[in-house]
């Protein structure tokens, strides 16, 4: 087992395919990425499609050239090592099983290619198969398997070589809802069992939050924030991270600060909603100051009859069974709130809105960076 260290990593794809003579160079797909994954840690690379997370993983695996920068696995610089010499296991998004081989041979393939002797291979397959619950699939051909089963075999194949570093490329993205959850739990259990340093690529924040020790959030090839799930949830560094983590996402509204006496309030265009600015921000705000305010749907509450909250009209109401989501128009934007109280609302109902001012975050209107107190 080894750690992973990525230093000032850049990747630019050359655009060969284009016909234009003076084609502009592509932007960097990965830009100045720095990441340290300690031995035994499970980190998730999280970001929207095309943000460079898979590219980073593929460079780590050696399937993609590095434009600039260094990748170390353990203490070894692996930039120019062949994938097979990097001691990695890689679970592919599309499973990438060898169609003419049985499940057994698929799992055993790597050991066979290395020339491990037969008895040892058999022992290791019999050891891994129950772990991934594919012991009764061993004689089958890959085409006969369901998506979930294929992914199990795919992961079994990645871990049988006892990798120093386990890489997973969106392993759950092709599974349907139920299989996905089951598989997620299984991966969690597996990683607890084998305690292998793991890098896990996903675009699903739920997977990242539930599995990872640390999450690296990437957008447009740039690392936005690297921290534990609690850190990225409670203390996002910018608007992107705030809106990417959490389901439903954080409400982010443009606001103008209004001062009344000693106090400041968030006010919104075309809305009479007024939220008290927590005192910790008093140093950075002033009357007329424009910024964006973020608040999680959980931190918007419905007040009781004697509430001091602003009366607002319900615009949308979704009953999801164990929680209810209510949308309220604030100017042109929609403010979502989640409540687990049993009351049913319909659009047009008036509720009193209370916002936990102390849980609000401020973001710069231009850059989206967090404004800290």
């Amino acid at each position, binding site marked *: 087992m080894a750690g992973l260290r990525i230093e000032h990593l850049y990747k630019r794809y050359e655009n060969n*395919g284009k016909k234009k003579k003076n084609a502009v160079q592509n932007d960097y797909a990965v830009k100045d990425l720095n990441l340290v994954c300690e031995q035994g840690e499970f980190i998730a690379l999280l970001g929207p499609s095309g943000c460079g997370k898979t590219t980073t993983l593929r460079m780590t695996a*050696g399937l993609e050239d590095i434009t600039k920068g260094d990748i170390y696995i353990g203490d070894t610089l692996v930039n120019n090592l062949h994938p097979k010499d990097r001691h990695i296991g890689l679970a*592919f*998004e599309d*499973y990438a*099983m*060898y169609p003419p081989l049985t499940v057994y041979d698929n799992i055993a393939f790597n050991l066979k290619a290395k020339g491990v002797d037969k008895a040892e291979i058999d022992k290791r397959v019999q050891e891994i198969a129950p772990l991934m619950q594919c012991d009764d699939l061993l004689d089958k051909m890959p085409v006969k398997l369901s998506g979930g089963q294929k992914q199990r075999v795919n992961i079994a194949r990645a871990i049988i070589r006892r990798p120093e570093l386990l890489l997973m490329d969106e392993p759950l993205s092709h599974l349907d809802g139920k299989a996905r959850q089951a598989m997620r739990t299984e991966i969690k259990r597996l990683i607890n069992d084998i305690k292998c340093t793991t890098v896990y690529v996903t675009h699903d924040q739920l997977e990242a939050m539930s599995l990872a020790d640390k999450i690296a959030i990437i957008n447009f090839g740039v690392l936005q924030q690297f921290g534990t799930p609690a850190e990225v949830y409670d203390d996002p560094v910018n608007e992107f991270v705030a809106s990417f983590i959490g389901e439903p996402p954080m409400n982010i509204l443009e606001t103008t600060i209004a001062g009344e006496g000693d106090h400041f309030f968030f006010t919104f265009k075309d809305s009479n909603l007024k939220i008290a600015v927590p005192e910790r921000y008093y140093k950075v705000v002033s009357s007329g100051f424009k910024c964006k305010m973020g608040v999680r749907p959980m931190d918007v509450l419905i007040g009781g009859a004697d509430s001091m909250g602003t009366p607002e009209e319900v615009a949308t109401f979704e009953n999801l069974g164990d929680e209810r989501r209510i949308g309220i128009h604030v100017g042109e934007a929609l403010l979502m709130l989640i409540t687990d109280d049993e009351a049913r609302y319909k659009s047009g109902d008036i509720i009193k809105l209370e916002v936990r001012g102390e849980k609000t975050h401020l973001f710069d209107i231009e850059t989206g960076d967090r404004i800290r107190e």
Partner: protein
Amino acid sequence: MESKKRLGRVVQNLLLVIYTIFALFPLLWMLILTIKPDAQMYTTTFVFSPTLDNYKAVIFQSDYLKYMLDSLIVAGGAVIVSVVAGVPAAYALARYNFKKKEDIAFQILSFKFAPEILVVLPLFMLFQKLGIYDSYFGLIWVYQLICMPLLIWVVRGYFEDISVEIEHAAQVDGYTWYQIFFKMLVPLIKPGLVSAALLAFIFAWNSFTFPLILAGTNVQPITVAITKFLGTDSAHYGQLAVAATVSALPAIIFALCIQKHLVRGLSFGAVKG
């Protein structure tokens, strides 16, 4: 209702049988000609005294076997060259992105567009100048016009159907590029490769215009040689029929040998999945 259905099936089969006879009749007629004596050649009744003289004359008293061998060499050689050069080309067209990729692919396909008769005269001049007129090399080379486009386009489709992740998985598993190519990819494209190679072989075997103009003395494929049985003063239709019948055999034998792959190959490529 039941009987109506059965009647329908009978009629259906009857029509198919009639069509089969209709379609195969020329072949049957050719087979009959091979065992007819010259004197009865033009009778249209099925009454004649069968003889093997035609076979004897063609196989033992002419250079027929030499022509067969020539055909085998040029058609077989052409297919081998096509496979050796075409499979890597197909792989490159399927996997890599390079300038004018689609143009090149289309250019290769377009070799099949021009009628042979149109290009054969310039080729003749060229062959004379290069000194490859009437040689095995020359014919194998020019047959690439027939074999290569077919092979490249069929095999390219097969390569495109194989997930690139399989190659990456094999790389991570420790295979070198040639091991990946020969041990992983070639088995996966085998059905397509085999069927394309067989079709290419048949086309090359049947080619007439190219060998007629570009060869003729040293190298004489069977298609050209058959015309020898038509003299200016006499036409030995019986011998002609024998020559044609026997020359169809190699392709049929090859097809039978690889039938298993062929059927799978032709249907496998059609449906992506």
